[in-house]
């Protein structure tokens, strides 16, 4: 696929964040080790990005947060994309009651605000990541389902599918040759958006103390912790926010569809 400038920019931003996440540990500092005498140090010396209010190394914490956010976002988006897309294809291909049932289910899920759904699920096990992950997947699969079902239904109504059936091809062929080439690029685009949503959601929830909690190095919870020190260490507060911005912008640029 030819890379547009937008996509290239998005890819570079994500590569930068990923490199930061992977190279951060080489610096050698422990993201959890406190040293109160070194609290709120400005960037420089042994702490290239300074320290937080408990004297923890910010570079190490931000890199750890990047690993957490990235991994989590990709897993959550994947957990939404795979069942969502497959169920959409199933609904379009089978029609009838299966389709109506799945559509009803999607409507029901969509009637709930996504964030509320996640908070609801996380409430069962505060501080744990699994419910957060489940809740996000549960909120995000609907979009994959809708896009894949609607696209597939449109393709199924085209002469190309009628022709394939007349030529004696079965469902598997229609799925692989006719539906998948149309659905896959849309699902890939949606995947990048969903990953972006997952990044902001985990940060937002951590910011209000759901799921990731101190001392876990997570961008959202780091911002909560550093909020009282905004005057003394504005950069320390700004850095996690900038990383979130860069990641989500990168994902959205990467998802951007090219117009020829």
């Amino acid at each position, binding site marked *: 696929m030819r890379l547009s400038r937008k996509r290239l920019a998005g890819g570079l931003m994500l590569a930068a964040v990923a490199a930061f996440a992977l190279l951060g540990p080489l610096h050698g500092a422990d993201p959890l080790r406190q040293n109160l005498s070194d609290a709120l140090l400005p960037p420089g010396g042994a702490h290239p990005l300074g320290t937080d209010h408990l004297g923890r190394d910010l570079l190490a914490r931000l890199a750890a947060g990047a690993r957490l956010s990235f991994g989590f976002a990709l897993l959550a988006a994947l957990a939404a994309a795979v069942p969502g897309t497959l169920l959409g294809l199933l609904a379009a291909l089978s029609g009838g009651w299966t389709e109506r049932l799945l559509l009803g289910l999607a409507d029901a899920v969509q009637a709930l605000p996504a964030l509320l759904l996640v908070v609801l699920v996380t409430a069962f096990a505060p501080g744990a990541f699994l419910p957060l992950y489940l809740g996000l997947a549960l909120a995000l699969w609907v979009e994959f389902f809708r896009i894949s079902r609607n696209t597939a239904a449109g393709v199924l109504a085209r*002469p190309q599918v009628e*022709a394939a059936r*007349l*030529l004696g091809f079965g469902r598997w062929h229609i799925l692989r040759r006719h539906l998948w080439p149309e659905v896959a690029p849309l699902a890939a685009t949606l995947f990048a958006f969903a990953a972006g949503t997952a990044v902001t959601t985990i940060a937002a929830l951590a910011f209000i103390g759901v799921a990731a909690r101190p001392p876990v190095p997570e961008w959202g919870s780091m911002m909560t912790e550093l909020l009282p020190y905004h005057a003394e260490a504005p950069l320390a507060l700004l850095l996690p926010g900038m990383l979130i911005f860069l990641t989500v912008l990168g994902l959205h640029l990467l998802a951007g569809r090219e117009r020829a």
Partner: protein
Amino acid sequence: MTAPMGLIVEDLRITGPEGVLMRGAGFTLRPGEPLVLLGETGSGKSLLAQAVMGALPPGLRAEGRIVLAGRDLLPLPPRERRALWGRCIAMLPQEPWAALDPAMRAAPQVEEVDRLVHGRPAAEARRRTAARFRHLGLEGAGGRYPFQLSGGMNQRVALAATEAAGADLLIADEPTKGLDADLRDTAGRLLRGEAEAGRMLLVITHDVALARLLGGRAMVMLAGEVIEEGPLPDLLEAPRHDYTRRLVGAEPSRWAPWPRRAAGRMVVEARGLGKRLGGRELFGGLDLTVGEGEVVAIAGRSGCGKTTLGNLLLGLARPDAGMVRQGGQVGPLGLQKLYQDPLAAFAPSQPLGQGLAELCRRHGLAAGGVAALLPRLRLAPALLARRPSEVSGGELQRFGLLRALLLEPALLFADEATSRLDPLMQQEVMALLGEAAAERGTALLVVTHEAALAEKVAGRVVRLGAGGEAGAEGARPAPELAGQGI
């Protein structure tokens, strides 16, 4: 304006990145005398119109002189060229139903031209539009949306809008594409009326019948060059250039009739068939039998249910009344179909050869079958590596035929299979279809809106009642069935 009237084009050349696309075109278009540009797809006739409009695709450049009412257009900056659109030059869109606003009723679309282009008050715009609609036979259509109107009516709405703009020069690009003979004649008469009312009319078409109807002068284009020019209809009666001769000869009415083939065992049979669509009866109580080796045509105006009838016979749709039965010798893959738009009938992302290979694997067919059929259908093997969108419509339709023939069908349903092709290509594809079917004893079911084509190819013609133009009026077509032998 007292400037010289008319459009003068001198030595027009159009060049693109790959070289010269059109060279040396020159003509003078006077009010009242239509000019028809004849030629096949890719001959450069649409480029010429776009050059006159000032709407060439990016990367293309026009040189020469285009003088409209004494004004040299080519040196003008694009902004000034665009300012002429609607007021001085109007283009009748190729598919008016696609060019009209689907969410707006017909009359307001025309009224807004009066209001916005000419700054007339709303009441006056309404009055003028109503008069235009009466003149064009569109009474009662003003309050309807484009999707509630037939193709022909939409075309007249688009024409009313260009009339309202008041341009002296009207350019119509393939105005009869996809229209059946009756609608084509109506559209032709409307356009001729525009010329007779004193406007300059430039019509681009590959439809020889339309050219004959319009009169005036004609220019024939081939591969970017004007090869012949002259007054109509003389040019068509005595064409000098070989290409023009072939173009005229490709009209279905001039084809040699296909030899009639005796019907063998029954392939499909319909008894008391009835189908309704959107509360309207398409046909009812229809009996039809197609035997082995027979050629049966279903003719009728657009919208009368021809395709539906074919689909019922193939089992692709269910009848509301009656029944369809297949002969015992017909296998599960024995009924195949060719589509009106071949591009829509192939998986777009798959190279053609790969699709054919999969078909052979699926049914355990010898791979040599494809190689044997390619030369028979005059297809180059190199095309197998291309995707459907990378071959011409005629080539793709022949691939559709090839793919169906691989399965040795008992019946082949050609659903307007050549109606989107250029006349010469139509002639060639139909001939290949007929030969291939005759060699194999395949029955052919040919759906067409061209009565002449139906009569030339078919041993029997099934005429469905005329419901096409009605569409919105909801006229009830009489289910009439005329089985005629030739």
